[in-house]
């Protein structure tokens, strides 16, 4: 017999479930401009506090304040807004197309548009992103043709992936966008490896890895952190903390301890936590981390605090696990509305121009959609030939595959 009482097993659970009143009072949000901007070559030990706060630039009054205000000219600011608006409009059309049965699946970015759109703007041509499924802003912000994205989503004959991948699993080497995998966090060590290769080759390019809050629990997250830390790889390691991993709240991936950003500390990797719904803050932090990488100072871990305002995917119903009003209660607001209000306050923008731009973008998206649907949709049958699935398994088709292709009737 033990002298100790029986142990008890604890499973973390969110305090708020459907039917409850949303409550984010536990999320401490410092005012915009409150967090200092250290030099990029700061000793990681001296900036540990930056993993426990939230770097914010845009104030509630529509001003950009503090040391993190980035230098962006008016044209860049307006382009940034347009990128986010395009991504949101694109999502809305494709979500509807999935509901209409034109494709099997879709994943939208609602509420998270600032992160990928602003981050891409901080990179240079030739740099390589290793994205997850919710960073299409990396493509949109480079004016990658929406037509091609839609062809991929429809798995039609012009799909660059030849109908082999789920919708939204884009790939474009020319745009620094690594082929998306449905397996979580595998891309994180790959990003580190790509960055190591750049350093080995005495190149000047850097890599960026992407992962969600839930997937930080994957072994590959930790594998990537070990390698990035050991070899000081020129890589920016991004964690998009949108509060929910499908139905699982972040306490399951993280427990009660610290923040996701703070996971960098054990590896000696500088870690920043940033308001993911603040376009200017995301851009500024991305530039800081990219600069560190380019100066051969090594990796940076960035946690973007945001909220997944929509479902995980078209196969998900969030009302089953969180209050419907939770998104409205999210204290960091909507990234597009906030940026719009900032631009209006600064005299760069107006409600009229915004409405006009929305209409222009809606036309642009619709025309790309029509063009893509003329090629075909998953349901219309204009998908790549079954003969094609035997291609690209290897560079040269081995005899057994040639035989199987013949057996399949091709």
């Amino acid at each position: 017999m033990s002298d100790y009482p029986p142990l008890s097993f604890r499973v973390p659970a969110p305090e708020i479930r459907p039917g409850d009143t949303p409550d984010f009072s536990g999320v401490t949000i410092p005012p915009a401009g409150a967090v200092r901007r250290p030099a990029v070559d700061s000793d990681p030990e001296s900036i540990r506090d930056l993993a426990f706060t939230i770097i914010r630039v845009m104030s509630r009054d529509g001003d950009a304040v503090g040391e993190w205000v980035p230098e962006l000219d008016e044209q860049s600011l307006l382009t940034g807004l347009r990128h986010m608006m395009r991504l949101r409009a694109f999502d809305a059309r494709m979500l509807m197309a999935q509901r209409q049965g034109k494709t099997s699946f879709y994943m939208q970015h609602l509420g998270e548009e600032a992160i990928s759109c602003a981050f891409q703007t901080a990179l240079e041509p030739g740099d390589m992103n290793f994205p997850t499924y919710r960073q299409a802003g990396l493509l949109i912000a480079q004016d990658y043709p929406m037509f091609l994205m839609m062809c991929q989503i429809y798995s039609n004959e012009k799909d660059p992936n030849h109908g082999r991948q789920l919708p939204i699993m884009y790939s474009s080497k020319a745009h620094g966008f690594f082929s998306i995998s449905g397996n979580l966090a595998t891309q994180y060590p790959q990003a580190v490896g790509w960055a190591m290769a750049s350093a080995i080759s005495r190149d000047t390019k850097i890599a960026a890895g992407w992962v969600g809050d839930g997937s930080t629990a994957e072994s590959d997250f930790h594998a990537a952190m070990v390698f990035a830390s050991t070899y000081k790889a020129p890589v920016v390691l991004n964690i998009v903390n949108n509060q929910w991993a499908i139905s699982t709240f972040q306490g399951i991936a993280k427990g009660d301890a610290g923040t996701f950003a703070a996971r960098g500390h054990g590896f000696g990797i500088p870690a920043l936590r940033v308001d993911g719904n603040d376009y200017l803050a995301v851009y500024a932090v991305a530039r800081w981390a990219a600069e560190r990488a380019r100066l051969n100072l090594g990796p940076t871990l960035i946690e973007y605090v945001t909220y997944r305002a929509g479902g995980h995917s078209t196969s998900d119903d969030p009302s089953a696990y969180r209050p419907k009003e939770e998104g409205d209660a999210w204290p960091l607001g909507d990234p597009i509305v906030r940026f719009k209000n900032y631009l209006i306050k600064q005299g760069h923008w107006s409600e009229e121009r915004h409405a006009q731009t929305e209409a222009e973008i809606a036309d642009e998206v619709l025309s790309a959609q029509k063009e893509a649907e003329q090629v075909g949709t998953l349901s219309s049958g204009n998908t790549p030939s079954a003969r094609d699935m035997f291609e690209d398994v290897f560079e040269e088709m081995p005899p057994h595959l040639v035989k199987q292709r013949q057996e399949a009737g091709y």
Partner: protein
Amino acid sequence: MAAMTMIEAIQNAHDNAMQRDERVVVYGEDVGFFGGVFRCTAGLQDKYGASRCFDAPINESGIVGTAIGMAAYGLRPCIEIQFSDYVYPAYDQIVSEAARLRHRSGGDFTCPLVIRMPVGGGIFGGQTHSQSPEAVFTQVCGIKTVMPSNPHDAKGLLIAAIEDPDPVIFMEPKRLYNGPFDGHHEKPVVPWRDHELGDVPEDYYTTALGTAAIRRPGNDLTILSYGTMVYVAEAATAETGIDAEIIDLRSLLPLDLDTIVASVTKTGRCVIVHEATRTSGFGAELCTLVQEECFYSLEAPVARVTGWDTPYPHAQEWDYFPSPERLGRKMREVMEA
């Protein structure tokens, strides 16, 4: 030509490949300064610098995952997993990533990558240093799986694997590192310098993936073997006096089916031998192929001699390891059937 052990031949292959192509980088656990626990990368860090041959953290998924990123960048990583028994943490990276990258990206990204690993038993390694996991790779589309049985082939196949545009699993039978081993563990070790296939050209050459070698021509029975089992087959053939044709597959995927079919069509009898566990082992694939391609030439059922479907034992190693005696018994059965 020089007398080389399989270790020296593999080291020499790395040296050749790194000399010819500066995109070739080599890393793994203990691979850099020390040159690998089996010494297959000895001297490479000194010669090519720490940025092309270096030690890696003990994290197989990280080793393979970073190598995939390097391959996508345009390097030619050739990485070592210290024992094949340790490869499983990297299985997701190999199966879901390396193997599929070319296909899923429509050829936009590719993965020219070699993953080396010592395999097999005969060294009292117990269940975590003796496994032969070839079938968990041959079952995966998009990767090639190779297993040399001698220094000459090890060098030629390794250089070919490094130059291959797709990922290759390169399995090294560790009991063959220092000499051919026919299963007679009670006898003194034969060194490679006394074997003709231990005579290795020092210059560059390749051995094409997907080509089998006939180690002994014969008329009565075909033995399909690879790795250490090639020498067990030679011993069993000598001891039974059966005129067996011994095929060393060398490359499991792609497979040299033509050589297999030609041989079995000629002999009408086939015994498959491998160290790995039997159920769903690579022998099952070979047996099916022989049945599909050679059924009307067969004079006896195709037979398998394999490791048992148990974890690889420590004390009972020689009861597990397919011996010339066990193979010889099966050969006689097939001859008498």
